[in-house]
């Protein structure tokens, strides 16, 4: 989906105008914002050209207003992979040298988690506008340092929480905020895969360099790599932050592959001030249920991954026609279950789920690199816009900050086998993303 299609979808769904007041970080997607940067170009450096870095390259290649002028990786094969796309770019094996390159306006940091905070802070202090992959940092303190640094230098910082830019999530959250599913009484997140999460290693000494996700020296495992994306769902839907978190994590299945020490099986419960629970579960030795994110309300459920709305209310008579009307109003087509044998009043058909918008691309969550149409491209476009204008998109950094903090806190809760609350010293001003 390109920007025009994104806006067109927003418009068709009737939330183009409203979206900007509800979701101000999308402002860069508007025609007006695009005109503002018309003819201008962003000069970008990429730090970390492994699989995720190359995933972003595929999107950058489609953006006419981007010049990738510098590339950096300390693993030569990855650097050479990226250089094929940008033969004119300067190549670095030390990110600090890239940050000294005055030709670089903005940097995209796609490195192992333990490097995020240091590189982000250095880049901000070097005057670069920064996009860093999630999670924001490796520890609670580091995340706060990053947040405070951005505040101090006043630069641009976006974190790779692409759901905030995915049209189906935006539409779903708007519906939730409008009360379509009633009061939110539960949030379920899960992410199941069945693979060992390893990358091939050409030489044993590169094991930790390439498979850094598997070692607690560099990574917080499933919580920072997967949960971080989903934990924002509860806050975004309810407009508040969790009060406490408990969890359990174990290395259950992948015990003979390597010397990994991050969990392959985790469950966490985040409890909000109103008593509502948000769960996250991940197992990487069974993939039957795939990836799921569901907001449960007193009147219905919205499945964020499939962009389906299910009502808990009794299906009215003629609900098939009601579905058809809703489809045509929304410019979509899906099945209608209303045919059968002769109608009897007491057996009104059950209402099946309704898509909340047309042309939904469902992401399976199987890839550990990235997926098309998951908001990543829109997020990157917003960053490029911010590189040119120097304007920090509103609200989005705080959402990313707390997604990281609660992912890290849950990981701590699992390791310490305790119920934990986020210490006040880590609390930064939070303005809910919801608006009535």
């Amino acid at each position: 989906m390109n920007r025009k299609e994104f806006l067109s979808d927003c418009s068709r769904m009737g939330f183009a105008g409203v979206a900007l007041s509800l979701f101000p970080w999308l402002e860069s997607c508007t025609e007006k914002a695009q005109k503002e940067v018309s003819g201008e170009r962003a000069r970008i450096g990429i730090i970390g050209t492994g699989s995720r870095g190359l995933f972003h390259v595929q999107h950058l290649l489609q953006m006419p207003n981007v010049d990738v002028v510098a590339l950096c990786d300390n693993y030569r094969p990855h650097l050479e992979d990226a250089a094929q796309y940008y033969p004119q770019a300067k190549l670095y094996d030390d990110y600090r040298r890239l940050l000294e390159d005055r030709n670089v306006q903005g940097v995209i940091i796609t490195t192992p988690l333990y490097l995020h905070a240091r590189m982000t802070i250095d880049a901000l202090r070097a005057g670069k506008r920064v996009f860093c992959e999630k999670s924001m940092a490796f520890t609670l303190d580091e995340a706060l340092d990053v947040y405070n640094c951005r505040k101090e230098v006043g630069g641009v910082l976006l974190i790779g929480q692409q759901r905030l830019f995915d049209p189906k999530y935006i539409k779903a959250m708007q519906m939730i905020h409008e009360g379509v599913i009633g009061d939110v009484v539960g949030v379920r997140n899960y992410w199941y895969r069945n693979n060992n999460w390893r990358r091939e290693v050409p030489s044993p000494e590169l094991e930790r360099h390439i498979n850094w996700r598997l070692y607690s020296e560099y990574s917080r495992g499933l919580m920072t790599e997967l949960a971080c994306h989903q934990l924002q769902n509860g806050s975004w839907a309810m407009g508040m932050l969790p009060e406490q978190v408990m969890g359990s994590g174990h290395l259950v299945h992948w015990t003979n592959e390597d010397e990994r020490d991050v969990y392959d099986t985790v469950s966490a419960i985040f409890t909000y001030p109103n008593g509502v629970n948000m769960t996250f579960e991940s197992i990487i030795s069974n993939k039957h249920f795939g990836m799921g994110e569901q907001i449960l309300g007193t009147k219905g459920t919205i499945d964020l991954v499939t962009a389906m709305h299910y009502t808990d209310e009794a299906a009215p008579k003629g609900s098939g026609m009601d579905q058809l009307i809703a489809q045509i109003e929304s410019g979509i087509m899906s099945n209608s279950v209303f045919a059968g044998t002769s109608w009897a009043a007491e057996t009104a058909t059950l209402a099946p789920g309704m898509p909340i918008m047309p042309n939904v691309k469902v992401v399976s969550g199987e890839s550990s690199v990235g997926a098309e149409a998951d908001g990543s491209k829109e997020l990157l476009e917003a960053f490029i816009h911010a590189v040119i204008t120097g304007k920090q998109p509103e609200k989005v950094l705080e959402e990313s900050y707390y997604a990281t903090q609660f992912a890290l806190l849950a990981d701590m809760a699992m390791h310490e086998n305790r119920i934990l609350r986020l210490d006040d010293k880590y609390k930064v001003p939070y303005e809910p993303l919801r608006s009535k």
Partner: protein
Amino acid sequence: MALEFRYSDKNPLHPISCGAFRAMHTRIEILLTGLKESVGRSLVERIEHEMKIMERRFNCHDERSPLAAINLRAAREAVEVDDDMFMALELCEAFRRTTCGAFDVATDTALQGQVSYVLDPLRHTVRFAREGVRLDMGGFAKGYALEKIRQMALQEGVATALMNFGNSSVAALGHHPYGEWWSVGVEHTVQRGQLAHEVHLKDSAMSVSGRSTDGRYHIVNPATGGTVAAEELILVEGRSALITEVLSTALYAAPRAQRSAIMSHYEGYSATEIYCRAGGGVERREIGK
């Protein structure tokens, strides 16, 4: 139940007029697109009015209906009927012959399989062959009504519409505004809410016969006068809502071995036996293939 009318122009490209009302012991729903609200409302009101007239005309239990008059007098004398009723009776007779008697509006348990009434095309009269014959046109009226609704919508210039007659008969004009057809699901009879079959309608119609949704057997076997106790659904698709309605009823009532022979008379129509299993499974068999 009073007429329900809803209008939506949320999608200005395809404004929707939707009407629903009770008639002929069931619920009729009509979805029309592309009309102004006043035009849509007026059309739905006229359709409802027409359905009420048709209901009276074909209701053999209403002593004021022309059909009741036929049932009362036709065993003793030739009863003159108006053009519409005569045409309807002619059609019913044609359907009786082409369905090997499986569709028959005459109920007469005394002499099964014999001609029960005689039509005189010159005088537009109907006369029963003997005492004891009664006409019940309920099985004909539904499809006939849908055809009438379709014609009324076409005359108003409607190109895209869906008409649902009690869930068991659905007729489409054109296709879904955002698809190549209207997609209609047939509900599983055991696992309610689940899809047993999907039908794509485009300027066509479908009809389903089987036990009613409350589990009753209600289709009468003209050969025995008793209700048919078959567990399968019969689904018929084709151009005319009248023919799909008649055929689904006839095929359900007919012995399984006779169903293919009936279908051989109807080119352009397809029929499927749908067996909904207790565990949620579905088996289908196309009749005549």
